[in-house]
């Protein structure tokens, strides 16, 4: 009898152990019965905090919205945010910490373009579902990585769209361009050169400034001297402000285009009247639009007063990415896994976020390729308004 019981209990014990271990394998990191952890690494200090803080506020809005609606299938989202100070080594360290110590289930962010590129091997090796929203550059989705998705539009496409628009609106005019001496500047210049070749634009001034330059007096004097009538200001924020002020001082006002990293409303106040009528390109809605106003209304009760003041276009990109990620995890039901979340992210089809065109991915498609729109600054209302 004893032998019989032993013989019977052994397979039962084995089956029980296997079932328990199977369950342990199924429960991914970052998930408890009541909580699910989403990690993020952004520049929260130093000049790039302008984008990092704003993007994190976008993530917080989407997470607060989901938590207020009961969380993801009953689990509240816990948001773990690390500061990298825009230093690549710290980004890698931060991502490792969020994955290995905080045991994040999924990632949002991540910092700038260079930082995202540098951290890619860590993300790939970990296999954690990740949605990148801050700095979309081609390297992040070409070739496609299984677990990394990018919401946005490429810098190069953005510049091509803007320059094409300005070229068609100002046929036969003389062009001027100034770019920063880094990867950002090279991307801007590449996009510009594509349109120059295609449309045979007459470029009379082409400058290249060193990152960190604050005085653009000689550069803008050269631009004026060249007789440029259309100008692509390839600075980011402070640089574009300084350029426009110099042009005002020199009493010239070429048709000017700026790129989305500098398309934030406080810039217009700093440029003063010199910033009126500037063209910009972006894939998120301007705050002056109905969608922009609705987003602000939605955000107000979900963030602190200080955070509300920190909202800019990066808040919208962060919000959209977080919405897409949360929706994918939610579709996995009560026991979400990394494999299921990645699969559901891939199935993302026309997800409405309210702040940009619907977001879609697909089999082998890890880039949402957002629709672009041209907008123009309006100094009296310190806002950007769509022009088409």
């Amino acid at each position, binding site marked *: 009898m004893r032998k019989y019981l032993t013989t019977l209990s052994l397979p039962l014990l084995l089956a029980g152990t296997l079932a328990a271990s199977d369950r342990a394998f199924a429960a991914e990191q970052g998930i408890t019965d009541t909580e699910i952890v989403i990690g993020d690494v952004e520049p*929260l*200090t*130093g*000049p*790039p*905090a*302008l984008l990092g*803080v704003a993007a994190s506020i976008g993530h917080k809005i989407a997470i607060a919205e989901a938590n207020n609606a009961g969380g993801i299938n009953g689990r509240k989202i816990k948001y773990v945010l690390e500061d990298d*100070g825009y230093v690549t080594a710290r980004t890698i360290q931060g991502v490792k910490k969020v994955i290995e110590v905080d045991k994040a289930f999924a990632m949002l962010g991540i910092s700038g373009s260079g930082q995202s590129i540098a951290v890619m091997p860590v993300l790939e090796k970990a296999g954690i579902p990740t949605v990148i929203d801050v700095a979309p550059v081609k390297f992040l989705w070409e070739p496609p990585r299984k677990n990394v998705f990018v919401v946005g539009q490429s810098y190069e496409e953005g510049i091509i769209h803007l320059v094409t628009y300005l070229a068609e609106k100002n046929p036969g005019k003389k062009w001027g361009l*100034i770019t920063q*001496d880094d990867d950002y500047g090279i991307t801007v210049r590449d996009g510009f050169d594509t349109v120059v070749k295609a449309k045979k634009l007459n470029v009379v001034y082409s*400058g*290249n*400034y*060193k990152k*960190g*330059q*604050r*005085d653009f*007096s*000689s*550069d803008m*004097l*050269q631009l004026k*001297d060249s007789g440029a009538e259309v100008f692509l200001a390839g600075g980011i*924020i*402070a640089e574009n*402000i*300084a350029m426009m*002020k110099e042009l*005002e*001082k*020199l*009493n010239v006002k070429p048709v000017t285009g700026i790129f989305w990293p500098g398309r*934030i409303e*406080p*810039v217009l*106040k*700093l440029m*003063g009247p010199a910033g009126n009528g500037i063209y910009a390109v972006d894939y998120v809605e301007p705050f002056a639009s109905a969608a922009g106003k609705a987003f602000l209304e939605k955000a107000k009760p979900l963030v602190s007063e200080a955070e509300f*003041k*920190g909202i800019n276009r990066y808040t919208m990109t962060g919000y959209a990415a977080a919405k897409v990620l949360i929706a994918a995890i939610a579709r996995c039901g009560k026991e979400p896994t990394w494999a299921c979340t990645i699969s559901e992210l891939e199935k993302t089809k026309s997800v409405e976020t309210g702040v940009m065109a619907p977001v879609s991915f697909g089999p082998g498609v890890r880039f949402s390729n957002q629709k672009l729109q041209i907008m123009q600054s309006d100094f009296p209302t310190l806002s950007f308004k769509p022009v088409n």
Partner: protein
Amino acid sequence: MQYLVQLLISGLAIGAIYGLIAMGFALIYKSTGLVNFAQGEMTMIVAYIAWSISTSVDGNPFIVAIGAIIAAVALGLVVERVVMRPMLGEPVFATVMVTIGLAVILRSSINFIWDAYPHDLDIGFGRGILRAGGIGIRTGQIAVIATLLALLAAIWAFFRYSKFGVAMRAVAADDRTALLMGISAPRVHAAAWAASSVIAGIAGVFFAISYDLSPAMFQLGLKAFPATILGGLDAVLGSGVGGLLIGITENLAGGYLGSGMKEVAGFLMIIVVLMVRPFGIFGERDIERV
């Protein structure tokens, strides 16, 4: 000709800002034998304090000026008393590293106390543009050039005629002998830090009026340091002149040789000058470099 004159004027204006910060570097070095690598950050902090004051007093320029000067004096004294004085007698390398650490702390404090957004320091002055013969200059740029020239004269007179100025020179020359003569070196050091902070703060405020106020402003220190080396690390007046030279050289190079040469030209000039005069144009021969 108009092109050249515009380049020269713009060069003088930005050079005056470099010159003021450079004078701050030299003032501390002359009195303490120390290079303060947090000079750009102190410039930025004072400008941010001035901006905070301006937003709460509706941009009243007199209140902003007085408030910013008081804040700059306090900042200089606190840094000297809390951070630098405990380092007295320690190796120069350790002391310099402390100033680098201080720079990082001050830089990070901007986001904690204020924010990462660019701001405009509007005190109802400095934004206007004067035009003559096709040349344009902002009133704030005229004011910063005038301020630098006035400070050069005042500091020259201070070191030459005032008792405290002579005491500072004595401490710089030989602090032990100065101590035997009854001069308090800590008092001299404190005064140097306070004065340096005020001068750098003036540069920061003028920069914020003419350009903008942002957490990237500390980089002005990196541009002003070569001006100090050019003028002479121990030459307060020479550093001011060095700033003007750097500003003009940068602008002429940028205007005639292209944007890429703008940043290079100033450093090229420094290399050439230092090869001929290793102690700077106005510096004294026997200084210890770090």
